[in-house]
Structures are given as C-alpha cells and as structure tokens.
C-alpha cells in the first residue's frame, strides 16, 4: 500500500537513533523552577500568588480573564521566591514565577479525578481542559480548549491526532506512543467527545513501526479511531500537510483547520488531556527529548515545566564535546538559544545541542534557480522569489507570491544548494507584511 502523504517536502536525515530506544525516565526534581506566565499563544497570565507564598503541586498560580489564554500551575511544591522577568526560549524576557522546591511534592487538593468520561459533558470537558492549562504540546502552544470551541457556524467532523513527529532528533512523542498507548487513546477519546466528533485518525510516520503497532493495539477496542501510517517525510506533522495527507482536504489559505471540519492535536496533548480527566493533574510536566552529539547520555525525560535547560544537561551527564548551538525544539523549526539558563515551557518538545562541525556556517552563494525549493515547498510556493522580493524590500510582491502562506517549515533552506537563508527572508517579509496590514 502506498503510504499517505502530501506533495512537496524534504527527505531530511532523522537522527532519531540517539534516543529512539531510550525509555522515558523521570528527571530529578529540580531545586527550583522558573514558570513563565506566558508560555502559550494568547494573553499572558497574571500571577495568583505572591513572593513568599507556599504552593503545592498542581495549584493554579497564574491565569487571565482573556478569552485566549492558558492558566499555569505549580509543578513543584515549595516557596515562591521571585516573580520577575526571566529570559525565555523565544528570546524575550517573560514575567515568571520562581518556586524553590521543598522536595515534598505535596499535591494540591484541587487535583482529583474528574470521574468517568461518560459522565462528563462536552462543556465540562472543555472547562477541565482549560483549567488544566493544556496547550498544544507539539511546539505551537496554542490553548487546546480554545481550539476545541469552533467559531459560530462551524463544526468539526474529524479529529486528527498528530503522532508524526517529523522533526529530526525528537523522539518524545514516539516514546509516549510506545510506552503509554492506552493513555494516548484515552486522551483521544476525551478530545473526540470535547470536539463533538465520532471519528479520529492518528497519523504516525512509518519510521516508527513500534509506535504504530502499540497504538493500533490500544485503539482496537475503540470504534472510530484509526491509526494511519504516513510516509516519513518532512514536514509531515505540519497541520495543513497532515490534514491533506489523511483526509485529503485543503485548509484554505489564511484559514484554519476548522474551515474544513478538522481539529488537529498533538499526541502529547492527548496524553495530557487524558491525565487532566483521570488524575485531575493539570499540565505541570512534559516529555522532552534532550539530544545531540555533544550530550553524553541523550535521553527522553519527563520534566517539570520550568526546569532549566542547564539542569537537563546535568540529568544527561553533561557534555562529551563542546556544544556550539543550543536549540529549543527540533533542528528544522527550533529556536537557537544564547544561554542555557532558560526554562522548559509547555511547548518545549526537545533540547538539541550541536557541535561546531554540525553547525552550517557556509556563506550563501547566488541563487542558481535550481528549483529545488519549489519542488520541496509543502505549501507549493516559490520560495526563491518570495525571498528575493523580501531581500529587496519589495514586500507587496512578496505578499502577492504568498509569503503569508509560508509555514516556515524550513524545507527550502534545508534543500537550497546555495545555502541561501530563504525562510529567514520570508519570515522577515511576513513580519513586515503583518505590520503593514495592522496599520491599515
């Protein structure tokens, strides 16, 4: 059978062997955590605690009245020692609550099982998911309850669970599916009910056969859930490409998946949603792949939100060689960091270290119009022209060529034989075009 996929995209090296066979293990309890009040798409939270307060695990410590936001909770029990701006992986400083762990991990009494799924209404589920502070764990960190609420006049008919994990190096989702398939399926069922759909597809790239098998076994007993093996091609896990591959629908340009009746959630998100129901524990920890050739013991770690990257390095027994680049996320879309003193947030799927030899420092050559970026663009754009217009400051033309439809997956820059900074230019154009549109 031909595997489902989309047109375009790049065959990137996987590099998953570093951690693919490593079971998820609990990271040591950090001495302190830095919990950012803004680690999601939407409005930042206000702190609900003061310096000096004692907090318990799962206690809500930040929330906002805005429609689009996600509350944050204490990942450890202990004392709030600071509320101030701290550097975050996005490059900016964000007001964060620093908690010193008392090592006891006392659980807040608000954390309790929410009962049987059958007994909970769609509204209940959405409220539980909101209160649990659950956001998309794939990296975008979009609040899940908001996604589950379709705008007036629109509705869902299909849930897609994204288990493709197409970013090289990362294996957090893969391990989760291998080790906790039942929990992933339970979360899927919760999301199906919350979205009001009767069918769900779980897309997994075919280079993770154990995950596919485990998930298929777990899904067997439940009707309406189908595991879909996908071609291992980047960016298979990008929302629009995933929808195209699995249900052959195209999200209209500038539109959202709901416009074609689909809601997409990451498999890690599904597990977190399931936990919010079964144990009542809000999103206070996640699986992070800490990897790269400089890392002595690359690992899949279950990490408290707010743990510093430097702590994770220690957890992985330090470095075998000098890292030259620290990336939050994967190598294709991740963000390079200037320091290791930044905390894990809800959207941190991995921390990748590269040595100087693995960092491309080549100067760009002139574009030779080889057309490889055109062949590879999963949005079917012409990256070479958009970036040329962007470089020339001709942003109207860049927009006309579809700059705003670029999903910044990096396939074009990856494949460019002249090492041109295509995504970088297009990103610049997007920011400029967005700013101009706001002005109007």
């Amino acid at each position, binding site marked *: 059978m031909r595997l489902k996929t989309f047109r375009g995209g790049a065959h990137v090296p996987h590099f998953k062997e570093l951690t693919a066979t490593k079971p998820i293990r609990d990271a040591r309890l950090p001495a302190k955590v830095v919990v950012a009040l803004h680690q999601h798409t939407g409005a930042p939270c206000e702190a609900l605690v003061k310096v000096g307060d004692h907090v318990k695990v799962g206690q809500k410590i930040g929330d906002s009245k805005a429609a689009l936001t996600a509350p944050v909770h204490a990942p450890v029990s202990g004392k709030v020692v600071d509320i101030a701006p701290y550097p975050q992986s996005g490059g900016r400083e964000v007001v964060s609550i620093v908690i010193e762990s008392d090592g006891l991990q006392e659980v807040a009494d608000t954390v309790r099982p929410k009962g049987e799924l059958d007994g909970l209404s769609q509204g209940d589920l959405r409220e539980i998911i909101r209160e649990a502070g659950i956001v998309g764990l794939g990296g975008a960190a979009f609040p899940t309850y908001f996604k589950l609420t379709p705008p007036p006049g629109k509705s869902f008919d299909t849930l897609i669970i994204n288990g493709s994990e197409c970013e090289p190096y990362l294996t957090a989702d893969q391990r989760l599916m291998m080790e906790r398939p039942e929990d992933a399926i339970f979360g899927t069922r919760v999301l199906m009910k919350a979205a009001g759909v009767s069918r769900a597809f779980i897309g997994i790239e075919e280079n993770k056969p154990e995950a596919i098998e485990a998930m298929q076994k777990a899904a067997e007993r439940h009707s309406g859930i189908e595991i879909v093996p996908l071609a291992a091609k980047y960016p298979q896990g990008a929302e629009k490409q995933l929808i195209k591959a699995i249900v052959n629908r195209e999200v209209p340009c500038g*539109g959202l998946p709901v416009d074609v009746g689909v809601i997409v959630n990451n498999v890690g998100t599904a597990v977190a949603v399931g936990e919010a129901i079964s144990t009542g524990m809000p999103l206070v920890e996640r699986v992070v792949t800490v990897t790269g050739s400089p890392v002595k013991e690359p690992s899949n770690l279950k990490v408290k939100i707010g743990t510093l990257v430097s702590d994770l390095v220690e957890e992985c027994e330090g470095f075998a060689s000098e890292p030259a680049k620290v990336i939050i996320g994967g*190598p294709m879309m*991740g963000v390079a960091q*200037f320091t290791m003193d930044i905390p894990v947030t809800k959207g941190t799927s991995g921390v990748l270290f590269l040595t100087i030899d693995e960092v491309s420092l080549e100067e760009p050559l002139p574009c030779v119009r080889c057309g490889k970026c055109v062949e590879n663009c999963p949005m079917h*754009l012409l990256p*070479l022209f958009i970036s040329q217009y962007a470089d020339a400051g001709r942003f109207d033309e860049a927009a006309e060529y579809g700059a705003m439809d670029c999903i910044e997956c990096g396939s074009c820059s990856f494949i460019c034989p002249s090492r041109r900074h295509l995504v970088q230019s297009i990103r610049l154009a997007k920011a400029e075009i967005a700013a101009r549109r706001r002005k109007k």
Partner: protein
Amino acid sequence: MAENQFIVSSSPHLRSEVSTPVIMRDVIIALLPPSFAGIYLFGFRALAVMIVGTLAAVITEAVIERATHRPVTIGDYSAAVAGLLLALVLPPDIPLWIVAVGSIVAIGVGKQVFGGLGHNPFNPALIGRAVLLASWPVAMTTWRWPVASAPWMGKGFDILTSATPLAALKLSGIKTPYGPLFWGTVAGSIGETSAIAVLIGAAYLLIRGHITWRIPGYYILTVAVLSLLFGQDPVFHVLAGGLLFGAFFMATDYVSTPVTPKGQAIFGIGCGVLTVLIRLYGGYPEGVCYSILIMDATTALLDRFTRPRKLGEVRRSA
C-alpha cells in the same frame, strides 16, 4: 552566562549536503560518458577541444572577476561546466583558437556581463556556440567521420564524407540507420553523436535528483510527436543531432530555464516545436541550440504566469 559561546541563527539548523559546487561537480561527472564517447569516436583531437574549451572558460571567469574586484568563483565549477558543455557541442576538428574564443564569449558575454553565477538569462555555452556559428560558419560545420568508423558506411555514402545525419537527410534525403545514431558512429559534435553516452550521463543526473524529467521529457516527446505529424521518422529525429544532449544538458540549465512545473513543461514543449520547425523548414539542418536560446528568453515570463496553485488556494474560475 557571561561567556556565552553559543551560535544563534535562524532555523532551520540542518542543511542538505548537496551544495551548488557539488551539483556542478556532478554535472561534470554526468558529462564524462559523452566526453569519453567523443574521444573514442573522434580521437584525441576531441580531447584537445574539451581541454581548451574548459580551461578558456575557467580562465576567463577568473580574469574578469579579478579585473572587476569581485571574488573569484571558479571553485564552484560552474565556469568549467559551461566550457565543457560548449566543447561538447563543437565539431572535433574546429581550430582550437576558435574554441577559446567561444569559451571567452560564453563566460564573458553569456555570463559575467549579467553578474556571474545565477544571473545569466541565456545558457552561456549556447551563447558561445551561437556566436561561433555566426562568425565561423565553415569551421563550425566541417564534420568528420568518427575514427571508429562503422561498417554500415558503405557505398553511396562516399559523397557525403562530412555530412551529419540531419544534414544528410535535409540535403540528400538519406536517412542514417538507428544503430549508428544510438552508438554515435556518425559525424557530428563531439559529445552529441552517441545517444547511449548522453543517456547514461542523463540517468546519473536524474538519479542524483539534480534535474527532473520535465523539461527533457516534454522536449523529446514534442519532437517525436511533431516529426511524426510532419510525416517524418520520430525515432530518427530523437536520436539524430543534438536533441538528446541539448534536452538533458542544455535545456536543464538551472539559471536560464523556468522553476515552476508548468513553466518547465511549456519550456520543453516550446523547445520541441522550435527544433522541429527549424529542422524541417529552417535554413539549418539542426535547431536545438537556437530553440533553447529562444525559449530561454521566455523564462522570466513563464515563471511569472505559471505560478503553482498554493496548497489551499481557491482560484476564481475564469
């Protein structure tokens, strides 16, 4: 934190191993089968043409870049590719100084005046060839039978000692059999006569993913279909002359051809139509060189008007 040593740059942080110099080097590798075929068929005179053509191109590039105070880019192999391509589409006995002039024109006029790599609107090698054909028409059309002359050349061919298969057909109505066309034991340009050698080189580029089948496919198919419509033998027209070499090595030049799938299809079809028209109705027996050059002129327009449909784009029906 004070001594942060980390490199911060925009994503993606991974790059493909295939760089532009690697591609150019692969093109040279792909040109080896036609080159060796040329040497086998036409002797070391052919090798001399290739060496002069390549060296002159590389030196021209270096001299012009040095003179205009720009970085010397001969390390990207693109000048060498242009020089070798030119040499392979020249007759084996052409005076070597003419070869050098061709390479100087190809790099100087065909490439560097437009700003060097990536900026030339026309295929530099074909610019060189077109200028030579216009300037030294006799030298450019003086052909020779291959050293390894085939037994099929028997009586009746004596009077045609130096006609290419296409010229023989056009001027005398004599059709060369497929066998010699396939193996290359006919008169013609150094790298063009052996279809099998060209196809081996082309296969390498296709397998390496450096070219797609689109332009050569549409080009060759168009020539076959049109020659059939005009009552000609399509197989002969595909194998004879410079069609295969031009389709796989010239019409696939990155810089001077379209990047959009539809644009590439139109480009290939256009080349095919022009080639057949020139062959059957033009003043020359062969038309590959001019066809590709003419279509090169349409590249910018083709790219502009054949923008692919974006994923999720809804076009108003016309």
